């Protein structure tokens, strides 16, 4: 063994220094380019982040994947992403169809986050935006076909704020009204309870990335 250590002596070290530097430089370049590419434009789809999550780009930068948020959630709503999430591997997210976020008033998940990926200072759980619910398949929505479903509406924790029912005349039957669930993005927190509750096999109401607010000056 003494021999071995002398064998890994100066010459070998020199050799490795050169041999390591170049690959490392390459690794830095390659790593940078590929991570930049991977992160671009939610290439792997929208991940519903826990309450208080900062903007996705910064979230991915800050989250150190410690899982404390997931452990803090009393409903086990938060899952840690697997390899399918690309660079988001190990990051916390909510699969609303499995378990949505129930909006704990004391927000234990955000409070548990050490890294600033979730905003600890968050106080009002009803003021967050994880995403926005959208009716993605109007044809399959039972309420839009005149049935009295509206399960999403009635289960929404911000009922009458985030979702309202807008009744209109049902032309076909002539005597019933169609109660359309309408989502108001300024109030919807994206908790996914509606998505979880939707009675169809494929949820008709789905939480998606909130579209950016487009400003204009009409005040109505």
């Amino acid at each position, binding site marked *: *063994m*003494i021999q*071995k*250590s*002398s064998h*890994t002596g100066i010459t070998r*070290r020199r050799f*490795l*220094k050169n041999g*390591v*530097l170049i690959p*490392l430089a390459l*690794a*830095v370049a390659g*790593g*940078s380019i590929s*991570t*930049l590419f991977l*992160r671009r434009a939610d290439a792997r789809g929208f991940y519903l982040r826990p309450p208080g999550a900062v903007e996705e*780009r*910064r979230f*991915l*930068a*800050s*989250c*150190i*994947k*410690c*899982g*404390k948020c*997931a*452990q*803090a959630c009393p409903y086990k709503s938060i*899952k*840690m992403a*697997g*390899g399918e999430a690309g*660079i988001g*591997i*190990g990051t916390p997210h909510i699969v609303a169809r499995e378990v949505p976020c129930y909006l704990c008033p004391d927000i234990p998940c955000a409070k*548990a986050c*050490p*890294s*600033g*990926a979730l905003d*600890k200072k968050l106080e009002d759980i009803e003021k967050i935006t994880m995403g926005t619910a959208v009716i993605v398949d109007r044809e399959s929505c039972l309420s839009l076909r005149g049935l009295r479903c509206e399960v999403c509406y009635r289960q929404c924790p911000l009922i009458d704020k985030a979702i309202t029912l807008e009744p209109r005349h049902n032309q076909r039957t002539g005597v019933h009204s169609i109660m359309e669930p309408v989502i108001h993005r300024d109030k919807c927190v994206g908790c996914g309870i509606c998505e979880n509750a939707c009675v169809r096999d494929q949820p008709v109401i789905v939480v998606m990335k909130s579209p950016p607010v487009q400003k204009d000056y009409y005040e109505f």
Partner: protein
Amino acid sequence: MNFKWWPIRRFVQLGIVTLIASPLFGLTIFHGNLSAGELFGINLSDPFAFLQATAASKVFIASFLASAVLVTGIYFMLGGRTFCSWVCPVYLLTEWADRLRSRFGTGGRTFSLSGVRWSFSATIIICVLTGVPLFEILSPIGITTRAVMFKAWQPLLLILSLVTIEISIARRVWCRSLCPVGGFYSFLGRISPLRVAFAHHLCTQCGECTKVCPVEEVLEPPLTTHKPQVTSGDCTRCGDCIDICPTQALGVDIWYK
């Protein structure tokens, strides 16, 4: 002398894994993992995770820093790569893998220990450049601890491939030459007063210590130039060399010599 370090170390290693898994059993003493955790309500963060997240997000979180400083302080005191051999579950896995390897007699190649420091530096640079805490994505430590925390076994495949490489090609290549966490601690660990002591008059140059040391290069200066202590930051403070030395030439020092 009957005293051995390794049972204590194994106990600590397994204890840490148990601690990480403890929330599964409804215990509330520990939350989180080795990137960041909370022990009896005290926040502890991996300083390297802090560096990455801060470098990537360019946002400074004071409480995050505080929890990282605490951990830094501890390892600063303990010195070397104590984290590796006493805490990190990957070390435990690769330790076992190494046993298999030596039984098979395969995978004898080794690479330079300085790799980990390069890796560390490169990671920080990439974090700054890309805004992604690169290592946290790939980290086998994160993967293993999350596997324990959430029973997420599938990403363990990555660990499996790592172990396979270590068994068949390069001995302990991950911890020796690639892991940036190791790199971070090897920077940090040079300064600590807690060190492996070497009494050259007792040494018979049998070489048993270098056989068991995962980073045998660190023993080179004492063995060849009779330095009284192992000073390299790469020393994992595992104590295996002390345990094996037939003549008690190796021991523990708690102050500089």
